[in-house]
């Protein structure tokens, strides 16, 4: 299933990193289809390198996802990408330097594309996971064009990136954390645009138009 985006003579790619456990590929793919974007799901190095844009989805465990990327020999390919790359949820978390999700014996090293890391959400007595629609604020990136501060988007997670210079949107659940992060061509969102109704579709559309 390879489709091309005629207007640009190229195609977008959703990286199939998954195997077990990372299962929002279908949802992301369908969201792109709703936008009329020709999309290919791939774990092939050449196709990934040649794509005009990439989405790195993922839900589940960081260790499983990193093992999959290693097994498919995709780590170097990903770190060398020059085109816009959007990480979603676990995909965003993998873009940071390390995660406390797997802290024994040491934090799990991840792709190190964005200079921040992943910590557990400390929420006092609020339920975990942080699940549901929450508001994003301090929106500082072209992918939020046309999206109002305080808009609701859908989150499902128990770990998050703290606020840092990489933060391009904030959210608060017990503590403030990064709802989105970015560095160079790499953009990551902790929430699920593919499940965030109109706001999410706007963000995906903006990503498809983003050229750095």
């Amino acid at each position: 299933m390879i489709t091309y985006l005629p207007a640009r003579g190229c195609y977008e790619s959703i990286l199939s990193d998954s195997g077990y456990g990372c299962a929002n590929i279908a949802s992301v793919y369908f969201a792109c289809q709703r936008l009329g974007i020709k999309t290919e799901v791939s774990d092939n190095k050449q196709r990934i390198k040649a794509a005009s844009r990439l989405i790195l989805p993922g839900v589940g465990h960081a260790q499983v996802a990193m093992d999959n990327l290693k097994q498919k020999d995709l780590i170097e390919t990903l770190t060398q990408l020059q085109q816009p790359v959007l990480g979603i949820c676990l995909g965003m978390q993998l873009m940071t330097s390390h995660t406390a999700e797997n802290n024994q014996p040491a934090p799990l090293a991840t792709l190190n594309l964005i200079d921040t890391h992943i910590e557990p959400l400390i929420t006092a007595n609020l339920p975990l996971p942080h699940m549901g629609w929450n508001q994003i604020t301090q929106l500082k990136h072209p992918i939020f064009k046309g999206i109002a501060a305080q808009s609701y988007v859908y989150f499902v997670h128990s770990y998050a990136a703290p606020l840092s210079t990489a933060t391009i949107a904030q959210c608060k659940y017990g503590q403030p954390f990064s709802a989105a992060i970015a560095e160079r061509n790499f953009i990551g969102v902790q929430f699920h645009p593919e499940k965030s109704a109109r706001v999410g579709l706007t963000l995906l559309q903006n990503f498809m138009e983003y050229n750095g």
Partner: protein
Amino acid sequence: MLAKRIIPCLDVKQGKVVKGVKFRGHQIVGDIIPLARHYAQQGADELVFYDISASAENRVVDRSWIKQVAAEIDIPFCVAGGIKTALDAQTLLEFGADKISINSPALADPTLIARLAQQFGKQCIVVGIDSYFDEASQHYQVKQFTGDEAATRTTQWHTEDWVQEVQHQGCGEIVLNVMNQDGVKQGYDIKQLNNIRQICKVPLIASGGAGTMQHFSDVFQQAHVDGALAASVFHRNEINIAELKQFLIQQQINVRAC
């Protein structure tokens, strides 16, 4: 602020949406996709699809419609019904379900929860609990196989103990359905939900009893649940979700207005 969720529940039987009163006499209320789209457009925060026949009839949920829901609906949805193995769960998640909910099979083997959470992440593993207040013993009992009246049985679990156990096994969310209230529109069982809230560290969704907008307000303000699930008041157009959200906003309850 995290919004309180309004969740229409679509009970599915043989590919149609159905609804009964106190789990009896199921009537067809409509087709899956048009109803799902209708609720998403009204501002539903999430949808739950229960194949209520699947567990009782000892077969897995008919999956053909799940991909279509995922293709057309841009809010999260959960699928329940007869999920007994990791392979069942994997199939539904790959079709685009955001979460899967297990009920009777978890009662048969509680370690199923732990195995699913380990493999797919706890965030997509919901446990549905059918709780019944037994007048004689004055206890809330957990029921199994409630999709079929003839097959329904009372388990050895008190609801409070089962809520602790499913969290211990690693579930990511609990939907507590109080059967005495189901379909009778007298309001959610605030007392029971409030008790469970004290011991529930994962998101808690109230189910069973919604009849008026005030019932939703009450369950959020008095039982502090994360979401409220309802079926018949939405299916019969007695409550419009957009209007319900405006009502809740007036009551200072944080919801996502659409």
